[in-house]
C-alpha cells in the first residue's frame, strides 16, 4: 500500500550519502548490494525490512529510464508517478555541473580522480581545493549513512520525509561535503546545491506540466502547449557543438540573470535605507517565488522560468520602489540550457560577424563558430537583454526628486536646507537613522571615516569558474595523455620485441629447413613453437594495450568535451554560499568593536568605521585571512570575482561619493581611495607583500624616509629609470623595497599603504 506523502525530488540522490563500507557490509550479509547510488535492485526482503511505499521511492528510478523510451512503456513505474519521475529526470539533467551528454559512455571515469589532491570522496571545491581535507581534520566526513543500520534510517527518510527543506536542513552538513557526483570532473559541486536545484527546477516544471490521457488511451506530458512522450523529445540533444545531437527539444525554459540597480543618489545617511529596502524586497520575492529563484544575492537574482511566465510581475515589488533591473535572459531547449549559454551564444555570434577584426576569435577556425551557431539557431536559442523599470512619465514638471530623479519631488525644508524629495524616497528616509552615532557622535567629533564594501562580481565569477574548470580538466587530460603516451611507448616496445621474435622465428624456420637430423629438427620445432607462443602472448598484450590506449583517447576526447558542456550554475550557487559565509564570519569577528559598524544590519557587504590605522589594518588583515580560508585557490587580481574597496574621507564627505567609488566596474582584489590624497588598486600578492614591508617600515625610520623620497622622485621626475637607479643604489639598505620593485610593484603603491596603515606622525592630514 502506498502512503500519502508527496513526491520529494530532493530525495532522489540520497543514496550518494552512503559509505561504500555499508554497501560492502550489505553484500557480505545478503550476498548482493545495490547498483550505483539508487536502490532499485535492493533486496528489501532479504535485508529484513519492507520496501518503502512513498511516492518519493520512484525517484530512485531516475537513472533507470532511457532517454528515448516512451513513457507509455515505463512498465516498472505506476502510471500515477510517471509524471513526477519524468520531470525529476529533466531537473536532474539541468542541475548537473557537466552536461549528462558527457562521460556517460565511460563508467570507468572515477579512476581518473587525481591521486595527489588529498581527496577521498569528498567535494573538490575549485576555489578551495583542500576544503574536504581540512574538514576531515575537524573530523567531519561526507557520509551520512555508514552502516547497515544507517540504511534503515535512509529508507525511513524516503518513506517519511515531509519536504525537501526538511531533508536539506537535516543532512545539510553531509550534503555540503558530498560532491554531486564522485567522478571527476563532476566532483566539484556540492550535493546540497545539486539537490536543492533539482527540487526547484522540478517544482517549476511541475507547476507548468500535466499528464494527459489521449483519446486512444496513451499518455503524454504537456508543458507550454508541447506534448511529449520521451525525455529526448522534451529536451532534445544535449550538445551545443558538432554536427550531431543538434536535434531541437520541444520543451524550452529561460534562465534569467537580474542585476538590481537604482538611480538613487544617497544625499543623506538615511538614504542608504534604500539598501535595507532592497534586502527586504529581495527576501520577499525569494520567499514568494522560492522555486523560481535559483539563487540570490543582495543585488543579483537568477531565475528559472518557463517561456511564458511574466518576469515583470515577479520583480514588481522592486520596480515599484524605483529600482530598475538589468536582465540577461537565455531561452533554450532543456537539453542545452545553462547559465553561460548566453555568453556562448553571443560569443559565437560576435566571432562569426567580426572574425577578421578580432584576435580573440582567431584562436579557433571560423567554421567552428559557424557550426556552433548553426546548432544554437537550429534549436531556437535566444538571448535577450532587457531593462525593467516602472512606468515613468514622458515629462516631469520641476522640481524632480533630488534622490531618485524618476518622480516629481515635493519641497521639504530642514534646518534651512531646501530639498525636493518624492514620497517614495521620503518613505525610505523615514525608515530611520541607520545608526545614530554617525550623524551625532561621530559627526560632532569631526572624525574621518572609512566606508568599505565587499563585492562579488557575477560576470567575473562566471569567467573564473569556466577557466578554473578548464584548468582542472586540463590537468587530468595531461595526466591521461601521459598515460596514453606511456602505453603507446609500451606498445612500440612490444611491437619491436615481437618483430625481433618474428625475425628469430623466421631465421629458425630457415635453419630448420636446412636440417636433416630429425632429432635436431624436432628440437628446433619446439623452439619455434615456443617463440610462436611468445609472439602470440605479445600480440595479445599489444591488443589489450591498444584497447586501453583507445579507451584513454576516448576519455581524453570526452574530457575535452566536458569543458564545452560545463554548466556552472550549481557551482555559482556554492561559491555564493561560501561568500555569504565569509561575510558572516567577518562581522562575527568585529562584533562588539564600538568604532566599526554595519550600517544596514541585514546587509553584510557594507561597513564603516572611524578611520584609524589600527582598524584599517584589522579590516584588511581579516579580509585576507578569511579569503585564504574560504577562497585560497580563487583568482585574486583584477579578475577576482571578490573584492574589497575602502573609501576614506572626512565624515562630511557625501556618502554617494563613497558609493560611487564602490560601484566602479574596473575593480581589483583590493581598492582604496583616500579623498584628495590617493587612489590605488592592489592584487592580493601586492597587498600581502607590501603589508609585510609596511609592518617593518612603521618601526624603522630609514625605510619610511626612503619610501617618502621615492614617492617624491616619482611625482617630480616621472622617470621610472631614475627610480630604478635609486632603488638599485639603495638595495643593500632597503632590500625588501628592492625585492618589491623587482616584482613590478610601484613605490607609490607601497607608500600609499604605508601612509594608510602607519598612523601617528605618518598619518595623512
Amino acid at each position, binding site marked *: 500500500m502506498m502512503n500519502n506523502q508527496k513526491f520529494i525530488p530532493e530525495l532522489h540522490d540520497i543514496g550518494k550519502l552512503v559509505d561504500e563500507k555499508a554497501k560492502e557490509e550489505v553484500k557480505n550479509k545478503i550476498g548482493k548490494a545495490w547498483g550505483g547510488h539508487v536502490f532499485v535492485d535492493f533486496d528489501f526482503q532479504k535485508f529484513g525490512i519492507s520496501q518503502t511505499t512513498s511516492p518519493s521511492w520512484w525517484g530512485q528510478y531516475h537513472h533507470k529510464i532511457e532517454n528515448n523510451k516512451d513513457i507509455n512503456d515505463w512498465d516498472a513505474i505506476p502510471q500515477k508517478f510517471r509524471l513526477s519521475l519524468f520531470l525529476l529526470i529533466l531537473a536532474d539533467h539541468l542541475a548537473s555541473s557537466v552536461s549528462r551528454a558527457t562521460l556517460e559512455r565511460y563508467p570507468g571515469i572515477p579512476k581518473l580522480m587525481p591521486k595527489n589532491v588529498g581527496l577521498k570522496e569528498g567535494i573538490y571545491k575549485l576555489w578551495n581545493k583542500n576544503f574536504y581535507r581540512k574538514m576531515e581534520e575537524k573530523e567531519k566526513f561526507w557520509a551520512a549513512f555508514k552502516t547497515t543500520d544507517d540504511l534503515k534510517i535512509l529508507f525511513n527518510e524516503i518513506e517519511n520525509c515531509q519536504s525537501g527543506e526538511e531533508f536539506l536542513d537535516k543532512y545539510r552538513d553531509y550534503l555540503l561535503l558530498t560532491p554531486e557526483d564522485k567522478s571527476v570532473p563532476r566532483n566539484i559541486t556540492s550535493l546540497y546545491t545539486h539537490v536543492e536545484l533539482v527540487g526547484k527546477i522540478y517544482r517549476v516544471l511541475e507547476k507548468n506540466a500535466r499528464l494527459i490521457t489521449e483519446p486512444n488511451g496513451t499518455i503524454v506530458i504537456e508543458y507550454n502547449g508541447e506534448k511529449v512522450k520521451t525525455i529526448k523529445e522534451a529536451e532534445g540533444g544535449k550538445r551545443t557543438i558538432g554536427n550531431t545531437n543538434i536535434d531541437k527539444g520541444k520543451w524550452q525554459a529561460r534562465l534569467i540573470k537580474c542585476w538590481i540597480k537604482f538611480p538613487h543618489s544617497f544625499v543623506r545617511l538615511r538614504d542608504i535605507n534604500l539598501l535595507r529596502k532592497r534586502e527586504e524586497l529581495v527576501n520577499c520575492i525569494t520567499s514568494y517565488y522560492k522555486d523560481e529563484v535559483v539563487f540570490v544575492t543582495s543585488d543579483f537574482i537568477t531565475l528559472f522560468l518557463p517561456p511564458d511566465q511574466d518576469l515583470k510581475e515577479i520583480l514588481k515589488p522592486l520596480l515599484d520602489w524605483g529600482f530598475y533591473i538589468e536582465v540577461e535572459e537565455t531561452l533554450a531547449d532543456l537539453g542545452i540550457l545553462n547559465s553561460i549559454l548566453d555568453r556562448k551564444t553571443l560569443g559565437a555570434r560576435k566571432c562569426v560577424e567580426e572574425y577578421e577584426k578580432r584576435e580573440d576569435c582567431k584562436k579557433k577556425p571560423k567554421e567552428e563558430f559557424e557550426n556552433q551557431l548553426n546548432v544554437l539557431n537550429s534549436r531556437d536559442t535566444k538571448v535577450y537583454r532587457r531593462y525593467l523599470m516602472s512606468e515613468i512619465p514622458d*515629462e516631469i514638471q520641476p522640481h524632480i526628486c533630488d534622490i531618485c530623479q524618476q518622480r516629481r519631488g515635493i519641497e521639504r525644508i530642514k534646518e534651512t536646507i531646501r530639498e525636493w524629495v518624492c514620497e517614495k524616497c521620503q518613505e525610505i528616509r523615514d525608515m530611520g537613522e541607520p545608526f545614530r552615532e554617525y550623524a551625532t557622535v561621530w559627526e560632532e567629533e569631526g572624525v574621518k571615516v572609512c566606508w568599505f564594501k565587499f563585492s562579488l562580481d557575477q560576470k567575473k565569477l562566471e569567467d573564473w569558474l569556466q577557466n578554473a574548470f578548464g584548468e582542472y580538466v586540463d590537468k587530468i587530460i595531461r595526466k591521461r595523455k601521459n598515460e596514453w603516451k606511456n602505453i603507446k611507448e609500451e606498445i612500440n616496445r612490444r611491437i619491436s620485441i615481437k618483430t625481433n621474435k618474428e625475425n628469430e622465428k623466421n631465421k629458425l624456420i630457415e635453419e630448420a629447413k636446412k636440417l636433416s637430423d630429425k632429432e635436431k629438427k624436432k628440437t628446433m620445432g619446439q623452439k619455434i613453437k615456443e617463440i610462436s607462443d611468445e609472439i602470440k602472448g605479445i600480440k595479445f598484450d599489444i591488443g589489450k594495450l591498444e584497447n586501453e590506449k583507445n579507451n584513454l583517447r576516448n576519455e581524453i576526447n570526452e574530457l575535452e568535451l566536458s569543458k564545452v558542456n560545463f554548466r556552472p550554475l550549481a557551482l555559482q550557487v556554492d561559491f555564493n554560499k561560501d561568500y555569504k559565509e565569509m561575510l558572516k564570519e567577518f562581522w562575527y569577528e568585529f562584533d562588539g568593536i564600538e568604532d566599526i559598524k554595519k550600517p544596514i544590519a541585514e546587509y553584510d557587504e557594507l561597513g564603516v568605521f572611524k578611520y584609524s590605522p589600527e582598524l584599517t589594518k584589522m579590516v584588511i588583515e581579516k579580509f585576507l585571512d578569511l579569503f585564504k580560508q574560504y577562497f585560497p585557490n580563487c583568482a585574486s587580481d583584477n579578475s577576482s570575482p571578490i573584492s574589497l574597496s575602502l573609501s576614506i574621507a572626512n565624515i562630511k564627505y557625501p556618502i554617494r561619493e563613497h558609493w560611487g567609488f564602490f560601484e566602479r566596474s574596473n575593480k581589483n582584489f583590493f581598492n582604496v581611495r583616500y579623498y584628495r590624497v590617493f587612489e590605488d588598486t592592489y592584487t592580493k600578492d601586492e597587498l600581502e607583500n607590501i603589508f609585510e614591508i609596511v609592518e617593518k617600515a612603521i618601526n624603522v625610520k630609514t625605510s619610511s624616509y626612503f619610501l617618502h623620497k621615492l614617492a617624491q622622485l616619482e611625482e617630480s621626475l616621472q622617470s621610472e629609470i631614475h627610480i630604478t637607479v635609486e632603488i638599485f643604489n639603495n638595495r643593500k639598505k632597503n632590500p625588501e623595497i628592492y625585492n618589491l620593485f623587482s616584482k613590478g610593484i610601484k613605490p607609490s603603491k607601497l607608500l600609499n599603504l604605508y601612509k594608510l596603515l602607519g598612523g601617528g606622525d605618518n598619518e595623512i592630514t
Partner: protein
Amino acid sequence: MKLLELHLEIDSIIVGERFKGGTFRPCQTTIPSSTIEGALKHHFGVEVPAVGFFEENTYEFDEFTYSVRDKFLNVSKMPITTAYLKPKGIHRKIKAKVYIPYSRGAGLKNELKDAEFQLGALKSKGFGRSKIVKVGEIESEVKQGILKVKVFEEEAGEFGVESISPVYGYLFKPDMFSIGGVYRRALFPGSLVKAPEVLLGEVTYYDE
C-alpha cells in the same frame, strides 16, 4: 547614418549631475543633449539636436571650492565643492566629440568651424571654454549596441537611434524663453539600442 561630427577641445568643464543637497556637487562624464543643445542655442541662436561625450583618457577629475554670495543679504553662503574635469596627463585639452544629425546641421558647418563657446556650469568662474577644432561629415553604420550618450527620447530618431530596451532618465528642457522648462524623458547610457556605431559603447548581438 550621416552625422555632422564636431571635435571639441576644452580647458576644464563642469557638467553637473542633477543631484542637489549637501555641499559637494558631482560632475558627469557625458555631454547630455540638454547641455550641448543649450550651448549651441545660446551661441549660434539655433535649436539643433546634439549629443556628445568626452574622449576617454583625455580627462580626469579635480575639485573646485567656491562660495555663492547672496547679493540681497550681502552674505556668503556655505562654500560648495564641485567636481570638474581637467585635461589628463600629456593632454593639454580635454577632447570631446559632438554629433548633430547631418540634415539639421549641414547649414551650420562653416559657422561651427573654429567657433569658440562655453559649455556646462560655472562659466563665470572660467569653466567650459570650448573650441570646435574640426567639423566633418561622417557616415556611421547603424548597429545594435549599448548607448553611450544621453539623448532626449523625442530626438533619438533624428540620430538614427532606435530603442530596443531603454534605460530612462530625465534631462532638463528649457522653454523657449529659457526661464522655465520641464524634465523630458531621455535615453541614458546603458540602453540597448540600434544606433550609429559612433554613439555606441559596445556592439552587441542580442535577440530582439
